[in-house]
């Protein structure tokens, strides 16, 4: 009897120890995120969404009965910082899974590291960072693949409104160059004549000269690939210097015009710009409205992007995808998770996502929307459909382009 009691007590102790170990040993997800620097504003909003997912998944009991813990460092939007941060995450913090930082520039330097170590990496709004690395355990949360997924819509709209000539202005940075290079090729294939093609250094202070030079060319279409600070400065210069009455379509790849503070600050200066986006009001996905409502409350407390259309839903979706893969495989084995992500359609708040062999979306969904009838100093207007009219993809179209560019600005 005493032996039997000892045996049962031993079993119970072992069970408690195992349980305690599981609960005290969380699943660590490591990442760097730009919290400062040019991508800092977007990075803070994105991180808030990831934290929301962590809260939600922990409220449901975590993953594999273990709590999820986020280990995050600020990479300052500096690509020189990310390899060191990710090495620390792996070797010192011993994280179980990796999320990539927001943006192409901070992500590109860590691709060789994750490929060499055979690790799963959930990409975060990067553009073509896996194009040459060809890592088969990379999964981007961004709704684009290559330049055609981005540019086809814009160029189709441009040709539809009678564009024959095109001007390119792109930042001398990884993302903008990748985008512009692809766009140049596609423009050539589409039979557009390039009348202006320049890259500008990231330290450019004033764009008056460049905008004036573009005006001189009388281009029909003006494609810009720029970073947040530059995007705002370019829009202001266009308003001051004028871009020419000939221009039918202006925009394309301007990062920063999706961020609420910039949208509110620029106000009516945005009218007429046809630019890419990931989500705009009017798109219906299961759970997105509820997410944005909760996000808005938390964003107000955290003092980050109050609307959060561009990055936060996709960052939350990144967590949802990992959750589905871990629950589906009942494992943290990186290869099994990668295989699951390759072979299953993920259900997220930004709609269903199926991955192609390169880890990009099999069915890209880049929105090209035109700012129309935007008033000054009014944030709430952007919550309604119609201020960013969807022109592409066709199945989501909810209005027509106002052309020429000058007309849309009146």
């Amino acid at each position, binding site marked *: 009897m005493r032996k039997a009691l000892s045996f049962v007590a031993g079993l119970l102790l072992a069970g408690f120890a195992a349980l305690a170990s599981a609960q005290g040993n969380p699943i660590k997800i490591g990442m760097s995120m730009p919290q400062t620097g040019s991508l*800092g504003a977007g990075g803070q909003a994105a991180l808030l969404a990831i934290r929301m997912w962590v809260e939600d998944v922990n409220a449901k009991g975590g993953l594999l009965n273990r709590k999820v813990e986020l280990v995050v460092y600020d990479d300052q939007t500096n690509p020189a910082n990310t390899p060191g941060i990710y090495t620390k995450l792996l070797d010192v913090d011993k994280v179980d899974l990796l999320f990539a930082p927001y943006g192409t520039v901070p992500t590109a330097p860590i691709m060789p590291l994750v490929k060499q170590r055979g690790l799963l990496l959930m990409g975060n709004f990067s553009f073509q960072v896996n194009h040459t690395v060809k890592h088969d355990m990379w999964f981007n949360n961004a709704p684009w693949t290559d330049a055609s997924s981005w540019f086809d819509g814009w160029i189709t709209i441009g040709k539809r409104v009678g564009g024959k000539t095109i001007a390119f202005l792109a930042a001398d940075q990884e993302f903008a160059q990748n985008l512009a290079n692809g766009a140049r090729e596609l423009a050539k294939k589409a039979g557009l004549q390039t009348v202006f093609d320049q890259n500008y250094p990231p330290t450019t*202070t004033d764009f008056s000269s*460049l905008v004036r030079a573009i005006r001189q060319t009388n281009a029909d279409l003006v494609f810009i690939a720029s970073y947040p600070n530059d995007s705002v400065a370019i829009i202001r210069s266009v308003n001051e210097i004028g871009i020419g009455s000939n221009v039918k379509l202006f925009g394309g790849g301007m990062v920063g015009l999706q961020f609420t*503070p910039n949208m509110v600050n620029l106000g009516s200066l945005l009218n007429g710009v046809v630019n890419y986006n990931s989500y705009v009001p009017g798109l219906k996905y299961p759970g997105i409205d509820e997410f944005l409502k909760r996000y808005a409350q938390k964003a107000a407390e955290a003092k980050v992007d109050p609307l959060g259309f561009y990055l936060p839903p996709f960052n939350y979706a990144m967590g949802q995808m990992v959750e589905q893969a871990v629950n589906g495989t009942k494992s943290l084995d990186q290869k099994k998770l990668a295989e699951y992500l390759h072979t299953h359609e993920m259900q997220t708040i930004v709609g269903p996502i199926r991955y192609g062999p390169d880890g990009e979306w099999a069915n890209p969904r880049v929105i090209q929307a035109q700012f129309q009838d935007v008033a000054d100093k009014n944030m709430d207007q952007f919550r309604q459909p119609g201020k960013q009219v969807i022109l592409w993809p066709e199945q989501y179209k909810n209005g027509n382009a106002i052309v020429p560019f000058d007309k849309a600005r009146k």
Partner: protein
Amino acid sequence: MFSLDLLFEALIFGVLLGCFYAAVSIGLSVSFGLLDVPHVAHPAIMVLGSYCTWLLATRSSLDPLLAGVLLMPAFFLVGVLVYRFYYETFERRGSDAAVRGLAFFFGLAFIIEVGLILFFGVDQRSVEASYIGKSFRFGDYRIPMRMLVAFAVALLLTFFLSLYLSRTFVGRAIKAVAQDEPALRLMGANPVRIKQWAFGIATGVSALAGAMLVIVSPVEPAMDRVYIGRTFCVVVLAGLGSMTGTLAAGLILGIAESVVMMLFGASWAPAVAFGLLLVVLGLRPQGLFGR
């Protein structure tokens, strides 16, 4: 596509841009050029000026330029205190003060940057005024009014600082401390107090330069990094401590950048600007207007 019209406009934009560069460099011309203080935190103080301008302009509906002027006395006091601290902890303690001072000012720049992030967040901030976002038109030409404001401020700052340094007793003492500190001490003047005063002026001017910065373009906390190279380039090109030289050097850089950007390719603009600096330093190591 070259045309004389385009070249003319490139020159106009270049003059305006150059004056803006001079306006943001003139404080450094005093602190680094005259006082020999390795003030790498100058752009960070300027960005702090931009944020304070933004705060004043948005909270009390003040014109940002006026807000910048109102901030000058407060920044003057900050400058006096910063220099006193720098003097007590670094300058008076030995010959390697410059190197250690460099670390001090880098540290100060980081503290300002992080402080701005904690207090204001990382979002861009911009101000509104009747001259922002509008242009002055004559014929086919359009000149951004915000750049005209920068042009006027640079000219006024250069004029008044030159006048102050050459016509007033303290101004001449500042120039004297730059040339021969022991001699000034022998004359019974206290060089530390004069340098403290001059550093205060340099910092006060940075407040106005910060107002210019946020008038010309939106600011974010890390923007100082963009201006470190450019402001030092202007001051060195000018010849350390020359106010009119600072204006001329700013104009040379601005015109070079603008013409290259409009007519030859924007990617070459920084290379041409800094290439110019190398050529000038090769031919005149003391700078264009240095003695």
